[in-house]
């Protein structure tokens, strides 16, 4: 039986059992994983994650059940469990409907790669070893602490009682390496580097190894800089954590409707520097968050979020869209079959600027560059604080020395207004946002 056969079966069963509406989401994900630990291959794993999640609505009451077994009897049991839960649930007067049938776009280019799909353990191991060897060869002082390289082949299928039916397959490659450098008995802080792509040909093992080694070496012999307020260059990953994450929270329609977003009621207003343009594009070719439909079977689309600093709109799933009498933007998301859909971005893209990172650095009179942020961000209020890792002090346009025991703090929503420049080198980050380096002013740089 195909995945769609199972989701269809589940919906039919729920309808027969008296549900007003029903939806089934099935997933079959094969993962091949190589784990490096203590500078050595620790393990290779082949995993299959298969299962089905069933959502039913009865008298505006919700019930959800899931099972890791795909069989007629386990699906019937999950349907019964969902039904029983709906019976003890309470009605939600805001409930309108599950998504209705809409025409789906063609699958975005590049989300499925034959070569990735066909990878065996040996090929994934080869990716890991190429990265490992590159880091080792880069410099004798570099040690590899750990890493993980994974290839995913995912199939999902959705059916609901309004006739929505969709099935798609995709591939993903992901790898990271954590290195440190040691010299004269002193160890650098942990340097982290990664890559994530849909296709083998876009994945660069060597770059991961080289950059991880480079970052580790660059943080040897660190110094302390005195506390000051100034410019901070956030590389893609730290910019995603500090700036993009609060944006995601702020434009999430569920947060907006609940008063959890500072951007409620601010459509059309200026919320960021003129330099900032952000879109959510679920159809981006090769995009790591791309597919033709979201986790409720609603067509993916390109949604403007912020245009030259001005807030354009919010991201919806079917529930929040119905509540606002709007169309869903196709931002329903699930990590797996075992969860109800939440609102999340598909590919959130921060539009790149024109300047290269080296040119940006050369224009900084006094500031720091942060290549890893180890800290906390409060997505509602935007407050952030944490350690600036793999960070260096910049003076008169030059990187002077690596920093130790240095923290940065500020408010992300303020920082969005204080963007000085956006770099040209965009990359996908682990938050599934495409982000270039971003330089912001008036950040607290804190030391002892």
């Amino acid at each position, binding site marked *: 039986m195909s995945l769609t056969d199972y989701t269809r079966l589940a919906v039919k069963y729920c309808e027969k059992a008296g549900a007003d509406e029903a939806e089934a989401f099935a997933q079959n994900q094969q993962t091949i994983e190589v784990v490096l630990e203590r500078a050595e291959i620790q393990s290779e794993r082949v995993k299959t994650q298969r299962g089905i999640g069933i959502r039913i609505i009865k008298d505006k009451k919700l019930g959800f059940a899931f099972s890791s077994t795909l069989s007629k009897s386990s699906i019937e049991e999950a349907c019964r469990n969902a039904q029983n839960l709906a019976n003890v649930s309470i009605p939600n007067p805001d409930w309108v409907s599950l998504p209705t049938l809409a025409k789906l776009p063609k699958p975005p280019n590049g989300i499925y790669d034959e070569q990735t799909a066909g990878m065996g353990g040996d090929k994934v191991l080869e990716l890991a070893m190429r990265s490992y060897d590159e880091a080792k060869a880069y410099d004798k002082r570099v040690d590899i602490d750990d890493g993980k390289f994974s290839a995913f082949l995912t199939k999902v299928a959705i059916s609901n009682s309004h006739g929505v039916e969709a099935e798609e397959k995709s591939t993903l490659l992901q790898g990271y390496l954590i290195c*440190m450098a040691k010299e004269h008995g002193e160890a650098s802080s942990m340097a982290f580097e990664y890559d994530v792509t849909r296709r083998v040909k876009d994945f660069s093992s060597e770059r991961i190894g080289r950059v991880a080694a480079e970052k580790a070496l660059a943080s040897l012999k660190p110094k302390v800089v005195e506390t000051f307020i100034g410019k901070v260059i956030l590389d893609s990953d730290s910019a995603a954590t500090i700036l993009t994450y609060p944006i995601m929270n702020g434009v999430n329609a569920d947060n907006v409707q609940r008063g959890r977003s500072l951007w409620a009621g601010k459509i059309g207003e200026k919320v960021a520097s003129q330099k900032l343009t952000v879109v959510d594009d679920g159809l981006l070719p090769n995009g790591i968050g791309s597919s033709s439909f979201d986790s409720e079977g609603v067509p993916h689309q390109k949604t403007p979020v912020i245009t030259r600093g001005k807030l354009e709109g919010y991201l919806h799933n079917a529930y929040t869209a119905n509540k606002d009498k709007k169309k869903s933007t196709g931002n329903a998301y699930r990590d797996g079959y075992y969860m109800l859909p939440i609102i999340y971005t598909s590919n959130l893209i921060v539009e790149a600027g024109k300047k290269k990172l080296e040119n940006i650095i050369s224009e900084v009179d006094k500031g720091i560059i942060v290549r890893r942020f180890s800290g906390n961000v409060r997505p509602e209020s935007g407050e952030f604080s944490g350690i600036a890792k793999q960070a260096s002090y910049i003076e008169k346009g030059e990187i002077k020395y690596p920093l130790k025991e240095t923290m940065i703090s500020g408010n992300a929503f303020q920082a969005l207004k204080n963007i000085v420049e956006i770099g040209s080198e965009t990359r996908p980050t682990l938050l599934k946002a495409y982000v270039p380096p971003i330089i912001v002013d008036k950040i607290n740089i804190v030391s002892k």
Partner: protein
Amino acid sequence: MIINLLKQCLKKSHGYSELRYHKRDTFTVSVKDGKIDILNRGTVEGACARTLMDGSWGFSSTTLLEKDKIEEILENAASLAEASRPKKKRAIKLASVKPYVDKYETPMKIDPRKTSREELVRLVIDVDKNVRGFSQNIVSDTVTFNILDDELTFLSSEGAEISQRIVRCFGNVMVIARERGNIASAYESMGAQSGLEVLKGTPLSNVGKTAAERANKLVSAEVAPAGLFPVILENRIVGLLAHEAVGHCAEADLVYGGSFLADKIGKEVATKKVTLVDDGLCPDGFGTMKYDDEGVPTQKTVIIEKGICRSFLHSRETARHFGVSPTGNARAWNFEFDPIIRMRNTYIEAGNYSLEELAEDIKEGFFLKGGLGGQADFNGEFMFGTQEAIRIKNGKFAESLRGVTISGNAFEVLKNVDAIGKDFVMRLGMCGKEQINYVGMGGASLRTKLLMGGAK
């Protein structure tokens, strides 16, 4: 019975082989702003095989629990072990352990399998109502309660046969308060490895009240200042210090790489007041198991005894490498992962100070409450977030400020612990290290010095 099927399959294994079976039943109810947001029930079930051949591990898992599939994962594990052997530099050897045949179940007064779900749904709805009724400033909340019921079976070709049922009941409350243009959030949790009786000892309604109070108080508060300050860490967040600053660096796999504790056995790493333990047997501990996922009995492992570093945390593999006995710290998130070295319940033992006495000698400092995420670096630098910073002025508690992330070097921070309270608590935690897992974190309020990443 699944155990008989596994036993039968294991007879045909190669080298040293383990089979683990894991079934996790989940129940979640989550209410957002008076409406049910999540009402879930589900089962995830599967098995995995791990084989050691000629010093090389292989691992394979499946959710299909049929005889030929179990035999297949055993075959896969063996062939993976063989195939990767030439690429490995170290030949793995295991410390020997007695193959135990045993059963264990979380001690429970109220077994969640025997109680109605309806009651729990009502409880969560009530807590949500009270949270939102706490103050006009509270605009939104989420109240969640979960039951996780794990059945674990471990079999080895050495003859081990262990069945464990581990039950965790836990909940949390998230609150958002707004006042004029300001917004503040607060978060608090409860839970233990126990039956539903945990709700009597630590009612979810109290957790809701703490979170509501905090969000309401902080909405009009400023962010705490930046700099190095004497601080009191609240008992509920001292476990984060134990876990992030010390625990990770005592994990033998990190020690092997040269963590800051690597050459410290027998040496002084903290003041005499500090005794730091990782205990697999804590009653109610979120990370408690009688046996780890290698079939090794867990134990109370003293990492730091009165300031002196005594032991690391081991798997069978690292124990053999370091020439010590395994400590029962090899844990896997589920059947999809092979076990790695993890903490269980990590805590700093209580002292005898009251909160007032801890504050007495602080001229200008902060009382930090409410934990957020943390991380440890190999070199001993660590951080974790706090939600609330109550100013201490000349030994007296003053106004509340918004908490910030704090950081320090484990070495220095431990040497600055000069007083420990008597208000010991254990709480639940989640830790992410390649794979996530549940841990316990504990301690009593204590005084030290830390760098606060606040506003200048």
